[in-house]
């Protein structure tokens, strides 16, 4: 038996119909994860296509403005398609290809994972369908059009809350239906095993690069690593390489939406209870009856009512620390980073910046923070504009 859990979290809580597919995936992943030829191919695309390594940029403007710790930004926003999501997609699609699959499906919230999947599928000549909640389709119209240009079919999902959670349900349903020739490309460290582990492995390049780059730039490790947490893939991607460095604090930032006390948030660790959704056991936002309650965040990539099981375990083991920031704080942080360093972060990533804005000033000038700037904010411009006009308040 393969290990499918992180402590009590994770597992494979899925319908029997797809169990064989999961086992097949697991076997393929175990085979290729150490296969030099596969890793070389993956590395080739990361370098030549995605544009890796991404810089670890010393944010002089923000550092000066906050007047505390030195702040470094891991620039995943510079990746092809504008976020960290493509790292994982390339890994999964190359695996799918080796498994002989010609069709792929994906769920998407902000649209970034959908765009990344559509992109990789176009590149590798695969048929691609992306499930997306109708509300997200509205919020992220730009990304919908991008996916369509890339030849993907965007399937609107109008069940439930019409956001990422429901798009995921629908993608799983579609996978059940087409399991024989279709590869399901999950966009974060969520879902049934082996996805959480596999997605983390396809994202760990972020932390590996950052660790090396910081050692080169500063000759030491950072005091803390900070990343936003939707499902948790960018966070696991940057945490992983520092896991054994116990002195390095790992901080995940959830979306507190309009404030935890309002109930309108996406803070699964802060407010969730252990449960099962989308094939995994983890912390979930849910009511007394076990029904999943809608997550809310101004950022479409964060409003997911769960969190990857490895994060749940890191939280339980207290290896990582999970905090949350509100919409308002994230928007302020987005503005601040635009003005201090000329970088428009994704709203998701702005959550990590927002927490840095609280933390850095309490630290000394010889301390170092590394932030995962998981994506760029071009996709969010309409949301930000609407927010500023108060339409979302």
């Amino acid at each position: 038996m393969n290990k499918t859990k992180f402590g009590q979290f994770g597992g494979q809580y899925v319908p029997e119909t797809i169990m064989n597919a999961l086992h097949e995936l697991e076997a393929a992943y175990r085979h290729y994860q150490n296969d030099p030829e596969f890793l070389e191919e993956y590395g080739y695309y990361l370098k030549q296509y995605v544009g890796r390594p991404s810089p670890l940029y010393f944010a002089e403007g923000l550092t000066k403005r906050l007047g505390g710790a030195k702040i470094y930004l891991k620039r995943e926003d510079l990746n092809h398609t504008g976020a960290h999501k493509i790292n994982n997609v390339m890994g999964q699609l190359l695996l799918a290809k080796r498994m002989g699959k010609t069709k792929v499906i994906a769920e998407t919230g902000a649209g970034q994972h959908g765009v990344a999947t559509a992109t990789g599928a176009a590149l590798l000549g695969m048929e691609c369908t992306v499930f997306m909640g109708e509300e997200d389709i509205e919020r992220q119209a730009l990304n919908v059009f991008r996916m369509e240009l890339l030849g993907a079919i965007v399937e609107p999902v109008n069940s439930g809350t019409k956001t990422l959670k429901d798009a995921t349900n629908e993608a799983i349903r579609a996978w059940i239906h087409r399991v024989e020739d279709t590869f399901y490309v999950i966009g974060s460290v969520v879902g049934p095993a082996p996805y959480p582990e596999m997605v983390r492995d396809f994202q760990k390049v972020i932390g590996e690069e950052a660790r090396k780059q910081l050692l080169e730039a500063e000759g030491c490790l950072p005091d803390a690593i900070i990343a936003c947490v939707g499902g948790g893939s960018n966070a696991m991607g940057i945490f992983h390489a520092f896991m054994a460095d116990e002195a390095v604090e790992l901080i995940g930032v959830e979306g507190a939406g309009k404030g935890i006390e309002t109930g309108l948030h996406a803070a699964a660790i802060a407010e969730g209870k252990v449960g099962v959704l989308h094939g995994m056991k983890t912390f979930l936002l849910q009511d007394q009856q076990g029904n999943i309650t809608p997550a809310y965040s101004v950022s479409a990539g964060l409003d997911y009512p769960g969190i990857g099981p490895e994060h749940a375990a890191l939280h339980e083991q207290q290896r990582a620390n999970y905090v949350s920031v509100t919409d308002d704080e994230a928007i302020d942080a987005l503005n601040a980073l635009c003005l201090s360093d000329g970088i428009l972060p994704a709203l998701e990533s702005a959550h990590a910046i927002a927490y840095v804005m609280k933390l850095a000033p309490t630290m000394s000038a010889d301390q170092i923070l590394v932030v995962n700037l998981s994506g760029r904010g071009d996709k969010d411009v309409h949301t930000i504009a609407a927010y500023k006009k108060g339409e979302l308040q």
Partner: protein
Amino acid sequence: MNRIDKTFQALRAEGKKALITYVVAGDPGLKQTVDLVLAKAQAGADIVELGIPFSDPLADGAVIQAAAQRSLNRGTTIDGVFDAVRGIRTQSQVPLVFLVYYNTVLAYGREAFLGECKETGVDGLIIPDLPYEEREEMVALMDESVHLITLVAPTSEQRIEKLVRDAKGFVYCISTLGITGGGAGFFSGLEAFLAKVKSQTETPIAVGFGITKKEQVKPLLPMVDGVIMGSKIVDVIHQSQGDSAELDAFVRSIKIEFE
């Protein structure tokens, strides 16, 4: 032996097959659910599956999703469903099986949930998102009074033997690649699939998912011990706004195929 076992034993003795029908608890209301289950039993349903509505029913198609959503919108609670079971049990001993997602069980507490099942008279649990690999954490807490029903899918292949080895109550054979409500039609190797399952177990087997027309029923009967009808029944209930008489008539029209 609980009610499920006894039912199959009795049917087998007569050379008959079971009609298993589904209803979403609380759609259109829990009071009607009691009446509808009683009506079904009256009309010939041998076993009744009672769905506990869940926000994210990922094994279900549009019809059952919508029914569950309507039920939740009316405020259906788990305790309310148990109360409905109590209501049914005052008038009928028809075998009752919950279709329940695992998070519902976890939220209620596994022991507490099983305790209530036993106390109110639920005979079986179908937990679509608790596959073989994860079931131990439930099975460990269960005794013979409530069966955890095993599901087997066309894609189970080599797993079938392992899955059905300790199957209790009946084996739920999924007839399509897909979710409830079908539409895709039966899996093309259905006959061989059912034969294979049958050959691996003494436990009765029932087939379901995507059976919507009575014409589909008769050809299946020789291969199985029971036939499950879900979305279609939910739809009939919804279209008739929970009218027991209409449901009665529909179930009877199906039941004829079993004679």
